[in-house]
């Protein structure tokens, strides 16, 4: 928390901010390219990178002085994926028979 005081984090904040803006522009531009089924993959990958940047640097998950917060984040994502994946286990296989 306050142990950042020795070096100013401003440079880091501004670089993350710039990276997020660049990511937005790339997402936007890439959506207009013909990438076939990779359009969605590119868009979601960039979104995930952006979300990670926000979580790690702006929300200070990276500098958190204990693992518990990371555990909270990871288990939340895990349960979200459970919700999506097990639902898709139904929707994805309904037409098989």
């Amino acid at each position, binding site marked *: 928390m306050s142990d950042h005081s020795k070096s100013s984090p401003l440079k880091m904040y501004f670089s993350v901010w710039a990276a997020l803006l660049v990511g937005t522009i790339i997402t936007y531009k890439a959506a207009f390219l013909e990438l076939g089924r990779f359009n969605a993959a590119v868009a979601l990958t960039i979104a995930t990178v952006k979300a990670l940047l926000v979580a790690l640097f702006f929300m200070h998950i990276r500098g958190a002085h204990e693992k518990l917060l990371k555990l909270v984040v990871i288990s939340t994502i895990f349960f979200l994926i459970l919700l999506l994946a*097990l*639902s898709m*286990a139904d929707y994805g296989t309904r037409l098989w028979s």
Partner: protein
Amino acid sequence: MATPSGPQGERENYLNKHYGVGSWLLTTDHKRIALLYLISITFFFFIGGFFALLIRLELLTPAGDLVQADSYNKLFTMHGMVMVFFFLIPSIPAVLGNFLVPMMIGARDLAFPRINLLSWYLYIIGGVMMMHCMLTGGVDTGWTFYTPFSTAFTNTKIVEAGLAIFVAGFSSILTGLNFVVTIHRMRAPGMTWSRLPLFIWAHYATSIIQILGTPVIAITIVLVAVERTLHLGIFDPKLGGDPLLFQHLFWFYSHPAVYIMILPSMGIVSEIIACFSRKRIFGYSFVALSSIAIAVFGFLVWAHHMFVAGISVYAALIFSLLSYAVAVPSAVKVFNWTATLYKGSIRYDAPMLYAFGFLGLFTIGGLTGLFLACLGIDVHVTDTYFVVAHFHYIMVGGALMGYLGGMHFWWPKISGRLYPEGWARLAALIVFIGFNLTFFPQFILGYVGMPRRYYQYPQEFQVLNVLSTAGATVLGVGYLLPMIYFLWSMRYGKPAPDNPWNAAGLEWKTPSPPTTFNFEEEPVVTWEAYNYEEIDAHSDIRPDEEAPSVG
């Protein structure tokens, strides 16, 4: 350690520190909030019980003579909604959990006392909305709100009931959030994870479900309300939507919700069995981790409620298999409790009788759950009384037995008075007999094909239905008794010593009833959980005999 007596000769405690309605309605003391919850959920328990009574009365005869189909639909719907969302889910966590979690870990209060109070107010707002909804027409969809009936057909008060549950859900989320933070952050020095009472482990697991499951039903209710109001088509097959999506989202919460009810009950049973067998719980770490395992596995099985609803057979296979997996940690617990009893010096006080009741009834409920997880049998008994009997064995036979056992076990701590033991044992026996008489016939009824949610039935089902109704009457008496003698004991009961059961656990090291801040000094824990062998070896005199006489 007791504070000097006041003029009335009573030691200052959390009950008599402040007087007046305001001191209760604005309290941030977790113990007082627990009592607020106790009063509120008892109220809703009797509302839900009243609906149950009417249901059983109607089913006394094959013909629909007491109520007609529409009223009957509303009766079982309101019974389910009130009992699930306004009694069972808050029951143990919000009453006993609220009271005991801080005391058991050696904290002065929950981490967020004001959020705790907020959660009670949210519960009350939800409860008032629910009452208003019931008094002005009610709902007839069954507590499950299945679409598209709930969104496009029925004319009853879906939106209002949904919002009531939405608000009450936030109360549940806040309770869970408070518990997790408290258990992580507020433990006394020396209270390591491996020394935590199993009650705490159970509540930790419960809180995980409350935190991660409840938001999903909240958004589902929002979708139902929006779809019903604006005639969208998200769940309506006529408009391109999928009603099964509703069921997926609904059961993603509502299946784990059963574990919100049963896990805290398991925690109570662990405490009681250890105390009344005078032994350390057998396989402590397995019992502790099985709570977490049940919470996690509980999220993997929801579609077993949808086997005949039209989900993919491959998904059904997966969910059937995963449902069996939940049985493993549950069985771990039952075996460990049984092993704890082995060679213990067992005392048959009322809490222990409830714990025994829990063991038997939960086992039956759990094993019949395996029948239902099996695809072939489920097709046969889906939507019959077999299912009704199964989940009542879990929710009433399991969760409610544990709740009553816990109420008896900790009543001396909560009220500072002893309840009448003889009456309590009698009540425990009546509840057990009444329960089995009510619900065992329903297994048979369901197996021979009586569907649930109908107000009439063929003549040949009458004998078993009469048995069930008779049992419900006995059960009702069994539930009224504790309420009467608990109230009685508050005035006439013998003052309770600090540790009437000679139990391990930090909560017994506080005075009965505790002071507002629980502990005068922050306790330092140097012993393992359930060190009964140690306690019994070092004290020939029970502490209650040496406790200073009160009054």
